[in-house]
């Protein structure tokens, strides 16, 4: 592993024959020719050295409700400063944020802010956000920026949240998780074929990333986007729920999210509420305690109920908390401890 440094495009490089570089950050293991980028478009071989061109240059900085990530079991009702740079190591045909995830840094219609880690942490504090999210595209491709900012934020008392597809190699993932408090990780499908056909990725590394994240002790929530005809069969949903239950535990919140025709997948209809409610029921029958519905309004699918006595704990309407009845992270009726970080 090569360590970090700082340089500019014009910096003098050592003369050598080492022209190709291999990026070992994600399972794609891109072998990059001089002047070319990896699949993520933002990690570039300049004179035989791998460089990240988006460090300190987010294209989006916004304050969102934490429920938008979605995270339902982590500091509910709080604002979260959310950032992203351009680029992604996956190229999902249904990407909802393809305008930035599949963009190049040079694209004229996507400009960036200059916001190094120190400024980002200061901005988070100034806006009274208890946490900072690395989201929208995928924090894995702006790994060094995420890592340095998260480390700095942690020392300033700010919590760090990742919203990611989890397509990363084990070693850098474990390094990053030291500074992370919570993550919403996509489990886009439960077959390798789905990952290969729809996302240009593979399933196993994502499952590994989920298991490692959960074992590291951070709060993990899982999102599965249900796409009509591709991953909406009851059996597929059952398998996915079973995998979550067995490998991450029944207390892990699972969000079933509705698909909208976007990017290269405009030929399929949006997911119906019936399908999402069916998925939720299947997952709960499989023994998951907290199953939610996203992208479509569903009264029961938005709320948190006690898995023991079924009493309503957190009443939500969209991203708004209407009522939070938790007492020190426990059910006020039966006293069951509810999985989450509540303060």
């Amino acid at each position, binding site marked *: 592993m090569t360590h970090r440094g*700082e340089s500019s495009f014009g910096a003098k490089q050592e003369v050598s024959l080492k022209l190709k570089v291999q990026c070992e950050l994600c399972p794609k293991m891109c072998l990059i020719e001089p002047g070319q980028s990896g699949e993520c478009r933002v990690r570039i071989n300049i004179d035989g050295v791998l460089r990240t061109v988006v460090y300190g240059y987010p294209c989006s900085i916004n304050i969102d409700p934490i429920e938008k990530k979605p995270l339902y079991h982590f500091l509910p009702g709080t604002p979260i400063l959310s950032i992203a740079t351009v680029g992604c190591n996956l190229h999902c045909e249904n990407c909802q944020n393809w305008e930035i995830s599949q963009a190049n840094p040079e694209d004229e219609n996507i400009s960036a802010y200059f916001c190094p880690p120190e400024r980002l942490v200061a901005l988070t504090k100034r806006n009274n956000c208890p946490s900072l999210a690395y989201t929208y595209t995928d924090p894995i491709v702006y790994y060094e920026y995420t890592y340095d900012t998260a480390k700095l934020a942690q020392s300033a008392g700010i919590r760090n949240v990742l919203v990611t597809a989890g397509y990363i190699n084990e070693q850098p993932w474990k390094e990053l998780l030291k500074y992370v408090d919570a993550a919403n990780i996509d489990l886009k499908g439960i077959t390798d074929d789905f990952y290969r056909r729809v996302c240009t990725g593979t399933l196993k590394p994502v499952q590994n990333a989920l298991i490692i994240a959960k074992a590291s002790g951070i709060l993990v929530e899982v999102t599965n986007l249900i796409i009509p005809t591709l991953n909406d069969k009851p059996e597929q949903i059952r398998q996915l729920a079973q995998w979550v239950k067995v490998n991450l535990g029944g207390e892990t919140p699972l969000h079933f999210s509705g698909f909208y025709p976007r990017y290269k997948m405009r030929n399929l209809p949006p997911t119906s509420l019936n399908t999402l409610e069916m998925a939720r029921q299947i997952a709960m029958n499989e023994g998951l305690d907290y199953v939610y519905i996203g992208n479509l309004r569903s009264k029961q699918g938005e709320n948190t109920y006690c898995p023991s006595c079924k009493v309503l704990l957190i009443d939500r309407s969209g991203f708004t908390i209407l009522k939070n009845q938790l007492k020190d992270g426990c059910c006020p009726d039966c006293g069951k401890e509810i999985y989450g970080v509540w303060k």
Partner: protein
Amino acid sequence: MTRRKFIHKLVEAGSVIVVGISWLAKNTTPRKFVWAFRVKKYPGSLKPLRDISKQSKWSG
């Protein structure tokens, strides 16, 4: 050329070949990175920081 000189030259030539092949193998193998180095200049366009308080239009 004596037999001793011939063997000496053979060993010399062999060593040069081995060293040469090792050097080539070492220097032409792609360098492996996890950490990428920063660049100081962003290759795209920059914009000034504006009001960040409203929700993002992006998913997530």
